[in-house]
């Protein structure tokens, strides 16, 4: 594979600002942190926005601490640290950047959704935010669909093409309610991706409308 290519499709500056400010729900933030792992350019933007946060802390009016605040912290300095270790990555999971691997855990529960498409739900879907890993077979086309709310998707392995372009590893697609598309997975490698949405997808077209009844997309 050699030197990894830089992603071509990025997050907008306002999304990066919101990430730096801590405003995204966890699954969206995980997707963004995954892109940042693979994209030095967006990482530089986030570093700049986080520096704004540093200035905000510096500029904040100092508030009086509780009596004994410092001593309380000092008393805990020698406490053993809770260990945080990621499960060892093998196979497909080794394609997941660390923030995503931490969210996914050791064994995603893959389910066959339709011919050529497997999905694994990630997380508890709280606050109406739905996250899933998707595995699309080489050359396989997904039903044409549109998005009820906001959807973000990042390619982790392989790639896909749609009306907008060709998406490779690290590329992010952000779709709103106005986008209807029909992605086709890379003919040789297929596509492994992570998608987060805050509303149900709607399939369009005659077959799609029927599938809507059966598939909790």
């Amino acid at each position, binding site marked *: 594979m050699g030197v*990894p290519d*830089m992603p071509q499709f990025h997050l907008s*500056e*306002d999304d990066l*600002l919101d990430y730096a*400010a*801590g*405003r995204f*729900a*966890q699954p969206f*933030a*995980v997707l963004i*942190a995954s892109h*940042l*792992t*693979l*994209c*030095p350019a967006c*990482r*530089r*933007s986030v*570093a*700049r*926005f*986080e*520096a*704004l*946060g*540093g*200035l*905000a*802390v*510096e*500029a*904040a*009016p*100092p*508030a*009086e*601490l*509780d009596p004994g*605040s*410092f001593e*309380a*912290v*000092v008393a*805990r*300095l020698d406490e053993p*640290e809770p260990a945080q270790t990621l499960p060892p990555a093998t196979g497909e999971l*080794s*394609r*997941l*950047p*660390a*923030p*995503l691997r*931490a*969210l996914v855990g050791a064994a995603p529960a893959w389910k066959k959704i339709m011919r050529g498409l497997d999905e694994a739900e990630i997380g508890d879907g709280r606050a109406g935010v739905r996250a899933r890993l998707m595995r699309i077979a080489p050359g396989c086309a997904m039903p044409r669909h549109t998005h009820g709310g906001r959807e973000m998707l990042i390619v982790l392995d392989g790639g896909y093409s749609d009306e907008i372009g060709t998406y490779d590893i*690290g590329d992010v697609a952000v779709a709103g309610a106005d986008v209807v598309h029909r992605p086709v997975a890379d003919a040789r490698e297929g596509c492994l991706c992570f998608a987060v949405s805050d509303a149900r997808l709607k399939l369009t077209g005659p077959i799609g409308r029927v599938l809507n009844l059966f598939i909790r997309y």
Partner: protein
Amino acid sequence: MDTASSPATTEARQLALWLGRVAELRDRAAFAQLFGHFAPRLKGYLIRLGCEPGVAEELVQDVMLTVWRRADSFDAAQAGAATWIYTIARNRRIDRLRSERYPTIDPTDPLLVPDEAENADQGIETAEREHSLRSAIKRLPKEQAELLHMAFFEDRPHGAIAAATKLPLGTVKSRIRLALARLRKELGPDGSA
């Protein structure tokens, strides 16, 4: 207009040195200095973002303990001490508010794509970069600086800013975008102006 050796820059260098001493030498005196500087500011910052004082106090203690434990992951070439501590406070606050972990990149991730531009950037000190950022914000048009302030320093969502300024939401968003574009232009590609 302050220069690169302004008091703020000198202070930023000192804070980074103390953090380095905590990481390398487990220096408790240096930690006490960091605590004295950051803990009251962090508490003020968290209260301004809407935390109850009791919760802010707990978070501050938690953040400072994390500073002690994670000091070795502070990289003075990447960020200033205040910026690094800001990210810890941001993450802790979200963990507490939503009981979920706010994800950040792992610098040791084997998938991490290294930054080629970083080598070209090495001559520029973090303290100087942050100095440039401070002065770039001062040069922003007042309304843009104010919007950025509300969006970031006070953590008001765009909708709340629109209500406070009586501007349509679309206008708020596009002005924040303008402010960001202006900052980017002021700072240049490597953030050093």
